[in-house]
């Protein structure tokens, strides 16, 4: 007797933003469960559309896929917020969960992707591929936080594998390629030069024509580090900036990452 195989979830979310009568609207959205997008929300007269992305299944299970595409037409401005942390459950079948995010930012558009935490549970397998393409004059601010597992339950780097690939292209040229591949069984993540005492990894990516004007030394000096948090900021090729955070404590890392995120958002 063979068990009936569970059908994998394949969440899909395709969002297109465009400026209409002074505000950015999301006239085209395709959603397939468990992914879902809220309607556009606005803060006062700010034309930026804020959209919440929801994952109604509660988390990804062995072999599940999430495919998200985001396209900002020329001149549109959007802020996307994940409603909750992304949970990746134990891979009981050995299959990998995949999250693919493709972003296309056309001329003079602006996207902010607010960081939420990715939590790979014990024995989970997760792969995320994020590709962002920017046209001339487009602005990006992107944040991401990876947890070691459900730390409060003592689950620290107990996942099977986690692969994260982030590619940023500006006008068709690959500007940054950040690729992490953590397989805790084969890798002493706490070794010198790796994560050391840190459990959480945070990243911010910024692309803006105003990037050159940002005083990175000032950003660096204002970073509230120590007490288990380390952080750095560097200039990428082109008009881009990258910040990395390595922290022992989730709350502390998240607070500081969000503070730097807002500080940068105000500058571009």
């Amino acid at each position: 007797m063979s068990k009936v195989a569970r059908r994998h979830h394949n969440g899909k979310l395709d969002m297109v933003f465009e400026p209409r009568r002074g505000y950015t609207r999301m006239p085209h959205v395709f959603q397939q469960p468990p992914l879902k997008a809220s309607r556009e929300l606005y803060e006062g007269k700010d034309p930026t559309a804020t959209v919440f992305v929801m994952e109604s299944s509660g988390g990804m299970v062995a072999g599940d896929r999430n495919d998200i595409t985001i396209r900002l037409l020329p001149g549109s401005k959007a802020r996307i917020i994940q409603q909750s942390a992304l949970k990746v459950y134990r891979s009981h079948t050995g299959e990998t969960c995949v999250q693919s995010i493709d972003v296309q930012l056309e001329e003079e558009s602006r996207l902010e992707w607010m960081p939420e935490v990715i939590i790979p549970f014990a024995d989970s397998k997760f792969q995320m591929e994020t590709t962002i393409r920017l046209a001339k004059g487009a602005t990006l601010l992107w944040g991401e936080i990876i947890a070691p597992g459900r730390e409060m339950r003592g689950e620290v780097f107990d996942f099977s594998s986690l692969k994260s690939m982030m590619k940023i292209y500006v006008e068709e040229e690959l500007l940054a390629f950040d690729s992490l591949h953590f397989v805790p069984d084969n890798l002493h993540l706490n070794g010198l030069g790796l994560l050391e005492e840190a459990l959480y990894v945070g990243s911010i990516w910024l692309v803006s024509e105003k990037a050159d004007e940002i005083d990175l030394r000032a950003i660096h000096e204002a970073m509230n580090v120590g007490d288990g948090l380390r952080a750095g900021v560097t200039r990428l090729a082109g008009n881009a900036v990258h910040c990395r955070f390595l922290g022992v404590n989730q709350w502390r890392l998240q607070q500081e990452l969000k503070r730097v995120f807002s500080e940068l958002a105000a500058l571009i």
Partner: protein
Amino acid sequence: MKQQNDDSSNLSNTVAIPTDIQFLRLLQIHDSAFPIGTYTQSYGMETYIQDDAIRTKEELIAFCTTFLYQNLVYGDAILIQEAHKAAKDRDIDRLLHLENLCGAIKLAKESRDASVNLGRQFIKTVSPLVEDAFFDEWKNRIAANEIKGHYAILYGIYCAVNNMDAHYAVLSYLFSSVNGLVTNAVRAVPFGQNTGVQAVHLLAEEAVAAAGLVAGLTEKDISNNALGIELASMKHEYLHSRLFIS
């Protein structure tokens, strides 16, 4: 002229043993006195030294081992191997892609600049010594500012046009990189000469194992898990006093 060993029944058929002159040429370009400026780069190690995190031989070896296995193996070494193959195939488009990728994976500005500075010094030093149309073409692209000229890519091309096997190109690069780091640590920490010698002696075995790993990797394996070192490279820019430029 020495013949390349193409005998497919040879036990070492996957790797062509360097000829005597190729062996000496490799020794020469990896000598610490070869003027490409390796002695000025610490790739973030100086940040660790200033944080007092590299005080013992064991810590030095741990740092170098992480740099070797997590940064070089899955970064420059794969790119050398791929550039070597692309140069053998005379595949310019592929080399341009690898050149771009080499810059994109080096997120910390100083590591990226180091790669370009070493590359530029390397080509200046070796170009009077190499007679090869393909190598010249790559050199002209750098001169014309069409490309940056990352060291790993140039070095892969150099070894390919001189018929040096990719395995020895990678092995000697890995060894000379950690050897350079240890030499710099001996000056900066400082350590006694014997500590340095003993560290390099041990790291040589790691370089052999690492080169063995690289042989089975391709572009899709590129990654960088050495986040502590990368962060240290990012912070190095803002250190108050520095011996090294990265």
